């Protein structure tokens, strides 16, 4: 379940990412009534087996069986909630045209990891973003030069060029990429959690800024949920 929109008096339109059929939008009737038999199964961050009845414009959900419920654990931790919101919004945007089983599995795995608090939520979010964009065909490079392939490590990063760039490819005034941030970005992309978690807050925040800029560059419009992650960091 990616997101929901209120419809009419007590219905919702549910946007889902399916394992094999990409993104699906369907109507859940009466789901906002507290007596609804769907309960919380059709809320974001839930993994559900649904049956749909084909309608003229939109399908209707006739049955929903819960496979895994990550919502309750995620909303109990506010930073996990904002991270999960970024993930589902990204999945929603990346699957506009088509999607893949890998994209589905990556999202489910990331939500599960957030619900279980396996890793700090900002790292889980950034790792998900880099890997989801890679699956969509926009793999960044933080080691070899993203433009000419010259072996790294390199000291500059230009998100518009795809990551780290060599001195020849770096336009004048390119942002500097320090060793700690570069190592963290490489670790996040690979899912190397031991190395990622060894990083300190300053490095995480810098890497987060680069991941956020890289994501917004590739998605036509910026992610709405991203701004609330950043503002969340500055509050106690």
């Amino acid at each position: 379940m990616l997101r929901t929109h209120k419809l009419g008096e007590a219905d919702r339109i549910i946007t889902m990412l399916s394992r094999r059929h990409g993104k699906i939008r369907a109507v859940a009737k009466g789901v906002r009534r507290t007596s609804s038999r769907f309960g919380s199964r059709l809320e974001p961050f839930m993994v559900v087996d649904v049956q749909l009845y084909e309608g003229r414009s939109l399908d209707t959900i006739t049955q929903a069986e819960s496979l895994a419920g990550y919502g309750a654990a995620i909303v109990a931790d506010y930073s996990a909630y904002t991270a999960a919101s970024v993930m589902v919004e990204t999945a929603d945007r990346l699957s506009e045209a088509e999607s893949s089983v890998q994209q589905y599995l990556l999202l489910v795995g990331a939500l599960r990891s957030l619900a279980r608090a396996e890793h700090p939520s900002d790292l889980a979010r950034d790792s998900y973003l880099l890997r989801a964009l890679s699956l969509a065909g926009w793999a960044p490079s933080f080691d070899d030069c993203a433009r000419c392939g010259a072996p790294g490590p390199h000291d500059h990063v230009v998100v518009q060029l795809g990551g780290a760039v060599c001195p020849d490819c770096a336009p004048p005034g390119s942002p500097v990429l320090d060793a700690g941030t570069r190592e963290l970005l490489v670790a996040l992309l690979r899912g190397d959690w031991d190395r990622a978690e060894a990083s300190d807050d300053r490095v995480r925040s810098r890497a987060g800024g680069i991941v956020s800029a890289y994501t917004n560059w590739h998605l036509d419009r910026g992610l709405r949920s991203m701004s609330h992650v950043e503002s969340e960091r500055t509050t106690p």
Partner: protein
Amino acid sequence: MYEGIVQDLIDEFSRLPGIGPKSAQRIAFHIVQTENLDVTRLAELLATVRENIKFCRICGNVSEQETCGICRDPRRDSTIICVVEESKDVAAIERTREFRGLYHVLGGAISPIDGIGPDDLSIQPLMQRLADASVTEVILATDPNLEGEATATYLTRLLTTLEIRVSRLASGLPVGGDLEYADEVTLGRAFEGRTTLR
């Protein structure tokens, strides 16, 4: 499609929440065809409501005056504030007759994916009200769905700095739904059995 003003009327009704094209058509034809229907009163009422309804300067509830009837009522217990998402939740809780404290209407729930963060809700005004030491308990009565729970989590964390009891409506409320649809008995019980978060 109908001609001119009839279709305009149907279009206007379809833009209202909870009214689909079929209902809009039914209402429009009811207005067009029913004899002795006092449309002048209806039209005047709509205009009057728009002109006179304000939001209570203290709690954010809909009100005809600067402050709402609940905030003005000296019999209400001003040491307890119940935090809800919308004015219609105030109405739902009032129907239970279980609660004698005051309210605070947030104006929605935190939903990053819809671009709604804490700053978009009436959270700062709530904190200002709580700075006044007379409040001893805050009841979080946001909807028992994902966004409502996340908003309660955020507020709980924010309120930990204050010496105030923070409680959440009992978990007996069915999950996934909107508070306004809970029946009076269930909602009343949820109030009685509210759990202290800190």
